[in-house]
């Protein structure tokens, strides 16, 4: 009886800790949401979570203010940047992964070793020559500096992850397909791609997330406001004001994180499994 009582208190204690940690972790996001309705006076020097009135003024004034451009445009830019980038990454990475996982050719292990080595190649060391290169191609202020590396499978994380996944699919499947006269590309498209769907989906989600959150890339390669994605637009909204209305900035920032949150809740299984099975960093 005593031990059972102790067990229950233990359980209660456990959940209490879990709840406290959870609240601490999520409080900033919750606070951010309510701050979007507040005035500077309410944001600073007060611990009240709820705003005095729920007014959408911050959203409305923030949405259109940035120099003739509205967040509709910035959102459109963001999706024009992130969606093709994600699709290109998934396509190229899966094709390259297929090459590494299913064919035996000369220098394969050397090349795969190089691919693994590029996992650790810091992006800061290649950014300057890349900029010079893309500048000479006239690609600065377009989205090509994002699309082209993605189309050429320059995100080794995803190639590596998909190779690992392909290794888990029995080779007999491709062999019997080729016995039946199925070419190697058709084998890939018709037999393997359907089986790779969960991994492809995880890779796509992460690439979307990373491109969406990325700030350094757009900061360097995109320089006209017309082509700004959300990340740059947020900085612009902040810098373009002499007296910053933080509620407005919070409203815009909240709008910026909203798509990510929605995507996460819709596809959380793929997120969590993607990290768990491949060791991706979030």
């Amino acid at each position, binding site marked *: 009886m005593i031990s059972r009582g102790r067990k229950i208190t233990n359980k209660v204690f456990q959940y209490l800790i879990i709840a406290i940690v959870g609240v601490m972790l999520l409080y900033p996001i919750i606070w951010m949401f309510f701050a979007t309705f507040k005035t500077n006076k309410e944001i600073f020097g007060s611990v009240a979570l709820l705003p005095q009135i729920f007014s959408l003024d911050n959203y409305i004034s923030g949405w259109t203010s940035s120099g003739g451009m509205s967040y509709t445009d910035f959102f459109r830019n963001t999706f024009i940047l992130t969606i093709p980038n994600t699709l290109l990454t998934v396509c190229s990475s899966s094709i390259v992964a297929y090459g590494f996982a299913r064919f035996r050719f000369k220098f394969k292990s050397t090349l795969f070793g190089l691919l693994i080595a590029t996992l650790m190649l810091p992006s800061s060391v290649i950014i300057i020559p890349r900029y010079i290169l893309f500048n000479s191609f006239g690609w600065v202020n377009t989205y090509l500096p994002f699309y082209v590396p993605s189309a050429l499978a320059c995100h080794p994380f995803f190639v590596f992850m998909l190779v690992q996944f392909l290794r888990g699919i029995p080779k007999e499947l491709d062999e019997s397909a080729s016995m039946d006269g199925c070419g*190697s590309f058709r084998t890939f498209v018709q037999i393997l791609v359907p089986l790779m769907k969960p991994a492809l989906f995880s890779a796509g989600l992460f690439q979307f997330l990373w491109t969406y959150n990325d*700030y350094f890339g757009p900061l360097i390669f995109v320089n006209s406001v017309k082509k700004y994605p959300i990340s740059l637009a947020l900085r612009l909204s902040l810098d373009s004001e002499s007296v910053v209305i933080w509620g407005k900035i919070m409203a815009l920032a909240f709008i910026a994180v909203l798509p990510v949150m929605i995507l996460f809740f819709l596809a959380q299984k793929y997120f969590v499994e993607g990290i768990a099975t491949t060791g991706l960093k979030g």
Partner: protein
Amino acid sequence: MTASVSGKKKASPQVAFWKIRDNHGYLYILPWLIGFAVLQFYPFIASLFYSFTDYTVTNTPSFIGLENYIKLFTTDPEFWNSLKVTLLYTIYTVPCKLAVALFVAVFLNRSIVGINLIRTLYYIPSLFGGSVAISLLWRVMFMDEGIINSLLGTFGLPMVQWLGSTSTALPTICMLEIWQFGSSMVMFLAALKQVPQSLYEAAAIDGASKAACFFKITIPSITPIIFFTTIMQTISALQNFTSAFVITNGGPLKSTYVLGLKLYRDGFGFFKMGYASATSWVIFVLIMAVTLLLFRSSSAWVYYEDEGQF
């Protein structure tokens, strides 16, 4: 004799078939080969080349030997500070983040109702990575009159000049990184699930204590994943940029002026591409040195079940 001939006959068309087929491999990896050569290997070598020149975008690069490096190490007042700040950022964030992730993962690794929901909620901060939106949130929260100080005030604690003082600005930025421990935690949780239950059963028969089980079974079993995470987190921490740029813009008094920020200022603010390339190579050498150190140390603490599986 006859048997071997017939065997050969039977095998040869198939072997030929696979040989031709195998050469398709090059075709499939071709995109990556091009990408690797043009967008990774070439820039890598080119940045080393530029680091020995005075390139500024407008001039043709001319070779100036080690001048950039000498300037960096001897006369640039920012460099040693930036190096120190970058190393501190890494030393503060990586061990803390991983320790918290491991601690929470171990705590959650038991039969708990609603574990999926908990895992999901704890993961949320990791979603935002180095995004501008969250950096802005951090900036607002940690302002002098911000919510954090207001909360401290209600508990009767003294206010802290989080972003305004040179001693606390860097730790405040580090907190943003540590807050996002969820993705590492999910990895650790997955690794913990892989630890064979039979090991614990055997230990229980031998009368091992809970603590002994934890340090002798749990931790050693997941060292490969701890090792991998440490390396990846270290590499990204050494290159941190966005949070330092958006939250404090390197200040106050350059106390958060990480090398990534210096690289950006020199290269894309002042277009001193040659000089910034030298900085980028310092970052690269730094990353290599730390990675090598971690690899060297790994034989002492990383336990692989199947040696050489990689």
